[in-house]
Every structure is written in structure tokens, then in C-alpha cells.
């Protein structure tokens, strides 16, 4: 008998994913507790988006299992919501109708409430075509949260936004995470974003998890020296190729000193 406090909320066990001959992910083992905010960082092509899609049920692992609660995931679970890098709103439906897509019974009032939560309550009748990039992602976020999911998966949703909008969206996501008691997994290439938002940062390199760091900073996160410490910790690991020999490191040092 397991309760949500004892057993992990999300359990990824020995997951491997290959396409044709290429292995994207090898032997991934992650346990996520309910209410955690986990960030997954890594270079492009390291497999972080693939891992997220496996958790979402958009694809199936070649071997190993993904379990949500006690259930093995075969396809998308209704309590899981996904946010893509593009907003992926239906251009022919109004903003409100787009949000209603996220609700099983298509309730208008729930949709309105969700739109208000992201600050777009007065745009409900507009077509998506007239919204800015940031506004579209906010509608997508409203759509994702309208059905009160337990697990929110974010696949680099802020990558296409300008810097200021990105910070506003980060604050919005953090606020909603706290208010709703969600479990969030955020895939991002931006280490600073990961440290600003997450309790825990996973680093994926070449299909393996090579780092699992708990961010012990207080919230609200301030960009002080503690913040920089974690950023550097992760960036140094990310930017150093693991197979660098001592001779290569020594060569670099020579060329940088005059």
C-alpha cells in the first residue's frame, strides 16, 4: 500500500529510447515527488525533450517504464498537461474556446477563470492571430491549467519569447505552481531559468543523467551570489566535455595566458 507521501509521484525506471539505430536515452532512472519543481537542462540534442515526451505519454520507451502514481503510462494521462515551445493555439477558435479545449466538459466559467489567472480575462473573445507571442503562451498556459492537472510538463515554452516577457512568464509559472500545488517538470536550455524556478536540476548529457542537484536557495529567488554559485556549478559541468584529458586542459591554460 503506498500513499503519495511514501511512493514517488512520478517514477522513471530504466528507461531507454532508440530511433532506428540511434539511442537517444540510456538507462534513465528518476523519481519525482509530488509538488516538486524539476528542471531538466542540457545541450540541444541531448535527449531532454525526448524524456519529457516519454513522461507525457506522447511516445513509448523502447525499454523500461514510466509510472505515474501507481499506473504505468501507456498514453497521455488526463492529469498530465503539456506546454510546447510554440503555443499551438487553434487559429480558428477564439481565445476562450481554445482554453475550453483543456477542460473535459468544456465549461465556459472554468475557462474564464483560468484566463483571468494568467491575466488575459478581457481577451477572451479575440482570435489568436492578433495576440503577441507572450500572450499566446499565456493562453496556452491557461489551457493547460484549466482542468487542474497534477503534473505540468513544459518543453522550453519560453524559448521564443523576448527577455522581459520571459521573466514575467517565469514569475507567473512559479506563482501558479505555488498556488495549485502542481508537480512541474521544465525542460530548458537556459540554466539561469532552471536555477530561478526549480527545486531540483537534472543534467542530461548524451542520453544519461549526469547530475542531479538540489537548489537549496530560498524563494522568492534573488539573483545573488548563492544563485550564481548554482548557475556556475551547472554551467561548468555543462560546458566541460567530460573526456578532456589533462594535456588538453593544460594546453588551454597556456593559450589563455599571455
Amino acid at each position: 500500500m503506498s500513499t503519495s507521501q511514501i511512493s514517488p509521484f512520478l517514477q522513471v525506471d530504466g528507461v531507454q529510447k532508440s530511433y532506428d539505430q540511434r539511442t537517444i536515452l540510456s538507462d534513465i532512472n528518476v523519481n519525482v515527488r509530488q509538488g516538486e519543481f524539476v528542471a531538466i537542462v542540457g545541450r540541444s540534442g541531448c535527449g531532454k525533450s525526448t524524456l519529457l515526451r516519454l513522461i507525457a505519454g506522447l511516445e513509448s520507451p523502447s525499454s523500461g517504464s514510466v509510472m505515474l502514481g501507481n499506473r504505468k503510462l501507456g498514453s497521455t494521462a488526463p492529469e498530465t498537461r503539456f506546454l510546447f515551445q510554440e503555443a499551438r493555439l487553434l487559429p480558428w477558435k477564439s481565445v476562450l474556446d481554445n482554453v475550453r479545449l483543456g477542460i473535459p466538459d468544456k465549461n465556459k466559467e472554468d475557462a474564464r477563470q483560468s484566463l483571468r489567472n494568467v491575466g488575459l480575462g478581457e481577451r477572451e473573445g479575440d482570435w489568436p492571430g492578433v495576440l503577441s507571442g507572450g500572450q499566446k503562451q499565456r493562453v496556452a498556459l491557461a489551457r493547460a491549467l484549466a482542468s487542474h492537472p497534477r503534473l505540468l510538463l513544459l518543453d522550453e515554452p519560453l524559448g521564443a519569447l523576448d527577455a522581459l516577457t520571459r521573466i514575467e512568464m517565469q514569475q507567473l509559472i512559479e506563482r501558479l505552481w505555488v498556488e495549485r500545488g502542481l508537480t512541474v517538470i521544465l525542460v530548458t536550455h537556459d540554466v539561469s531559468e532552471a536555477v530561478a524556478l526549480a527545486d531540483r536540476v537534472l543534467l542530461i548529457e548524451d542520453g544519461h543523467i549526469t547530475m542531479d542537484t538540489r537548489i537549496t536557495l530560498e524563494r522568492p529567488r534573488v539573483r545573488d551570489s548563492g544563485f550564481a554559485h548554482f548557475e556556475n556549478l551547472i554551467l561548468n559541468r555543462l560546458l566541460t566535455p567530460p573526456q578532456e584529458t589533462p594535456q588538453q586542459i593544460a594546453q588551454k591554460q597556456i593559450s589563455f595566458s599571455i
Partner: protein
Amino acid sequence: MRSNTFNRAWFNQFIPFVVPLLILALWQWLTASGVVAANILPRPAQVLEAFIRLLRNGELLNNISISARRALGGFLIGGGLGFLLGVLNGISSLAEKIADSSVQMIRNIPHLSLIPLVIVWFGIGEEAKLFLVSLGVFFPVYLNTFHGIRSVDPGLIEMGKVYGLSRWSLYKDIILPGALPSILVGIRYALGIMWLTLIVAETVAADAGIGYMAMNAREFMQMDVIVLSILLYALLGKLSDTIAKWLERRWLRWNPALSRK
């Protein structure tokens, strides 16, 4: 300042009519002054007289309704079949493999060249014209429906699946609306072909309708009725295109590229 904007709006409304009115004036001058002989081209007034005369004795409305019914019937049959097959082939790649190349082969036969064959098969009755119009309308609707469905953004379909939309809802809310702009282009094109086919079919083999009215008038050298028939076809063509454009504006309101400033 207010009178400035008032004049501009009135001006914009009036401008599209300037060229047709000039042509009308030219036509009147050419025929009235005798530069163009009376048995080549009638005067505009004569065409108007013919219009009123045929309107009075009921022939005009009768023939117009017969032609319109043929056109609409052929459009519904050919367009309906083209739409259904386009959807089927668009959604199922098995269906596409079976049917698409055969359809493309038939498409390459100009349908108007089948007229002698059609007359042998169907005579000169209604079926012949319905068949020809349907055949002409089928292909643009099929092609554009098929292409429209295949071009729907796969990202949107993936989003639909992630949000747990049922199969039916995927078609109704994502695939068909996504294909609609392309389908409407196909319909606009099909309308042009519809009138073209109808005109040719009615000219060649008919016992009623606008084309028959024109051919009959030719027997008796009634130039005014002939010119009237041409104008009627033109008006009907313009009317159907206007309806299609209106539908497009209405159904594609969401597209910022199409909306007027």
C-alpha cells in the same frame, strides 16, 4: 475635415463602376452612330428591351432557373463527391494509395472533350449536363480538399492528442477547419469551371435554359437576345463568385492575413 472623409468613402464606392460605365457609353456610341452595323451588335437599349420582353412572357425566369438548377445540381454532386473522396484520401494513406493515381489519370482528360460521348450515352437531356458539370467540378474540389487535409499543421494535431481530444473532435475541431482555406479555394475554382461547362453543354445540346435561348435566338438572328444571354451568364458567374467570397470572409474571419483594415 468631416466632408473630406465623407467624399473619400463615396469616391471609393463609386470608383469600381467607372470602367463598366465607360464601356457602356462606348458601346452605345459605337452602335448608335453606325460605326458598328446593327446586325453585328445591337444597341444597349435593344438588349434592355429584349430583357423586359422576355421577363414579361416568363421565358427569362424559366430559362434562368433551369440553367441555375443544372449548375447547382452538378456542383452539389461533383463537389460533394470530390469533398468526400478528398477527405477519405487525405485521412487514410491506404485509400490514397488505392484511388489517387486513378483519379489523377481521369483528371488529365479534358472533360469537355467527352461531350460527343456523353450525348451518345445520355442524349441531350438533363442527365448529360449534370454529368458534365459534376465531372468538371469534381477535380478542383477533390485536389484542394486532399491537399488541405494533408497540410494541416501536425503540431496542432499532436496538441489535440495530448489534450485528449476524441477522434471525432480531432476531425471536427482541428483537421477540417485547418483544411477549410484550401477547400474554399477549390470551391472558387470549381465555380468557374461549373459555369464554363454549363455554357458549353447548353450551347451544344439543350432544349431549355439560357444557352438554348441563345441558340434559338441565333436561328432567328435575334442579336439582342444573344447579347442578353451572354450578359446573363456573366452576371450569374459574378453572383456565384461574390457568394463564395462572402463565405470565405465569414468562415475565415480568424485569419489576420485576410481581414480588412
